[in-house]
């Protein structure tokens, strides 16, 4: 497999991510159990959505102690491509691979809808040229309210690390932040679910360019034809 999708106890978007990457985009993908090692030859890792360890304590707080996190940190440290979606974003923040934290939605309720988003010019992969100015992606979370202290926020903004902003804001997230990347540009995290917007029966196809932007280094080396 080229794209590994980590399966924690309680992950529930692992199949969805695998389906989008393998069956729709056409890159070999597979699920890797959290107690196992990251297989050799993996070129990108997706930490999928769900309720890892029941979201007990705090979302992502227990998953960060899983055996596979050592491999994941090494992989990211060596420049490997990592994308955290929803609960995966929460896990990346808890494990320190991305800055900030995600807390309860300010409406105090779970929200599931197709969310309009504003695209930021972050880097040569995530920008308005590749993604358009606006897109819509499904969101489904109870704790997607992004928080960070003033210095971190200032750094995120100054370095164009914000990928997507909510428009309008469904959860109280600071600076309307829906997704960010690390400074190096190899670790990405977002609350919206691009894997739920890749097929004709989905609310839209805006998830395809988002996943393609993340997987761009792999797609360049082995171009595949998108049929969706």
């Amino acid at each position, binding site marked *: 497999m080229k794209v590994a999708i980590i399966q924690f106890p309680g992950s529930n*978007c692992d199949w969805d991510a695998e389906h989008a990457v393998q069956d729709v985009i056409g890159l070999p993908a597979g699920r890797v159990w959290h107690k196992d090692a990251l297989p050799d030859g993996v070129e990108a890792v997706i930490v999928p959505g769900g309720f890892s360890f029941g979201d007990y304590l705090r979302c992502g707080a227990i998953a960060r102690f899983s055996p596979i996190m050592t491999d994941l940190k090494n992989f990211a440290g060596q420049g490997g491509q990592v994308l955290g979606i929803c609960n995966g974003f929460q896990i990346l923040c808890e494990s320190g691979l991305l800055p900030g934290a995600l807390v309860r939605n300010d409406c105090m309720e*779970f929200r599931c809808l197709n969310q309009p988003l504003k695209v930021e010019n972050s880097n040569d992969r995530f920008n308005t040229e590749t993604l358009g100015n606006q897109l819509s992606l499904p969101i489904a979370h109870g704790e997607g309210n992004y928080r960070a202290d003033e210095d971190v926020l200032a750094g995120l903004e100054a370095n164009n690390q914000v990928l997507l902003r909510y428009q309008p804001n469904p959860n109280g997230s600071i600076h309307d932040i829906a997704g960010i990347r690390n400074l190096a540009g190899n670790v990405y995290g977002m609350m919206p679910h691009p894997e739920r917007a890749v097929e004709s029966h989905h609310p839209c196809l805006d998830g395809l360019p988002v996943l393609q932007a993340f997987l761009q280094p792999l797609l360049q080396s082995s171009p595949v034809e998108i049929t969706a």
Partner: protein
Amino acid sequence: METSTAPLPPNPDPCLNVEITKELIAQHGLLPEEYEQILKILGRTPNLTELGIFSVMWSEHCAYKNTRKLLKLFPTEKQDKNAIGQVLVKAGEENAGVIDVGEGWGVAFKIESHNHPSAIEPFEGAATGVGGIVRDIFTMGARPVLLTNSLRFGSLESSQVKRLFRGVVSGISHYGNCLGIPNMGGDVYFDDCYEGNPLVNALCAGILRHEEIQKGAATGVGNPVYYVGPGTGRDGLGGASFASRELTEESAEDRPAVQKGDPFMEKLLLEACLEMMSIPGLVVGIQDMGAAGLTCSTCETASRGDAGIEIDLDLVPQRETGMNSYEIMLSESQERMLVIVTKGRERELEEVFEKWDLHAARIGEVKEGDRMVVRHKGVVVADLPAKSLTDEAPVYDQPTSEPAHLARAREWKVESIPELDPGTVESALLGLLQHPTIASKRWVWQQYDHMVMSGCTVEPGSDAGVVKLSIAGINKFLAIANDCNNRFCYLDPYAGAQIAFAECMRNLACSGARALAVTDNLNFGNPNKPEAYHMLKECVKGLADACSFFDVPVVGGNVSLYNEHGEGAIDPTPVVSMVGLIDHAERVTRSGVTEPGLELVLLGGLPHELGGSYYLQTRLGKKEGTCPSVNLGAEKALQDFLISQIEKGIICAAHDISEGGLLVCLSEMLFDGEGLGASLSLNELGESGRLDALLFGESQARAVVAVNPQNLDAVRQAADQLGLPFNSLGKTNDSDQLCIEVAGNAVCNAKVSGLKSAWESAIPKHMENA
């Protein structure tokens, strides 16, 4: 075969060694003649643990003692053996029914109630309701692919009802979202009759290969019996029979009678069980521990397997100390399963559960004979013939008496209702759109993850929820609808139940789906009251006749009786849920119109009946009148037409006429587009000669469809051939106005965006600061 009539040794817990008195028997909900039957079966006096076991197994919930005869009226298989949707596992055979959906795939589905727990503790009650039905589905070997709920509450004006509504919705959201099974919404009604006794019915459907169907039977003498899942506690004891505080020295006053759910545990159990069941030949039988927990799962598997079973309670994982045999056997702790595996292959099961960090304890084995033997601390604490608990439960046919209001409903005259002033049509429409039963339920389903598993094709809010069966790798779509208008069932139980069936099937037809099978949830009052039993009996007859007429069998369901509040029984509420199949993506049809210039066509004729309508409720506060007439032949013609025209690709949108009548139906159809309007006209008032009955009457077998103008003639001809009444109403436009003319007079000129905002904000307004 060993049959012991000698008394059992004393229970190792002295508090259980009590004399079985009349009071104790009554507290266990057993009638004196039922106790006599137990004495005859055993040939000796039961001990307290055994009495507890009989009381839960012979309860209405497990034994259907007041409904079993009635349920036999339902057709359980298809008459047409060539049609799609043949029944693979029939109602009552296993934890859920299974139907064929082609290409070697089957769908397991079932609905179940959790009404009383939700009335006491709405969040946990509703959450564990979801947990229970999901276990019923994956026990069959199926991967759950969708959830829906049928919910009924009192008036949203009441702060108590708001608390229940919020708690139930958040409990369902909490549990289902964590499991990662899309919840496609369902139906929600608000009516005073549910004040103090809400209904929380949960449905789950799952997909599996035919050869993957699992059995809940204990077979193969010597095969080990495993307990998997978290430890057993004292939770849920009160739910099964009587409070545990009378049995133990310690006070149990603070112990909840409602079970506590842990959706994370259930997710682990779901994945572990599916992984275990994918190992060929490993699992012999599997059954979830739902109502009556360990008791029900052991005696039912033994009974189905024509075998004996022996378990040792010392081996049961426990999360509380000092539990006695009565408590362990009757606990309803959640997220547990009983699994029987092939002898010699125990390690294969244990390895799967080790991977998922779950208990897997070998607690007994399958035995020769027919006894269910339970040991605790080295002593036999129960020794009963397993089949006596399942097959020999008493069956009753209760006396019936027709409630007086049914005759009044039949004799009702519409003339008793003042005619509608044409100048107030718009305010009447607004009143209906804002009634919480009719208003948008987005407040509910935006809290449910309906998009997980990548299958959601038609989101909640349309006539039926539709999911693509992507996870099975097949290009088919499963449609689901739930229905039951209690008002009609109250006014005419036979016709009301048929309307519930017809509307449900019509919702599927409007979505382009062919109906396959039914699961029903019969929510009624106390069966010992002749009037309540009359309503139950008539509803079952009506439903059974409709099922037979349409050749749509019932493959499972649930009965919830004793739904009473201060002022009597709830309205009869036989919730009908139906699954349907759509073979091609392009046939998936929605209720909303999204473009101007389409012709709107009324099918089935002009509505003319006002009885039981929401118009009477919202305008005059009345639940009265004659239930609309039911004509199953006309219903069939309408649905055959809808399906055939959708399959031809001619129908752009279809919406059935139900609560609120024609004008509500037309308004709702325009809400999906930005700035859409319509200019419509009807030449005459129709059969009733009344504007109110035409615009707001809830006559059955009607729908509105949107078609391209160039197809209008073809559609008209097709309708004529079927003898289906056809009224072309006019076109959609981009005016944001709904203009309606009746017999040359303008009766409505309303801003669609204003109607939509009233419809969308009604429930959120009620729930603000609640």
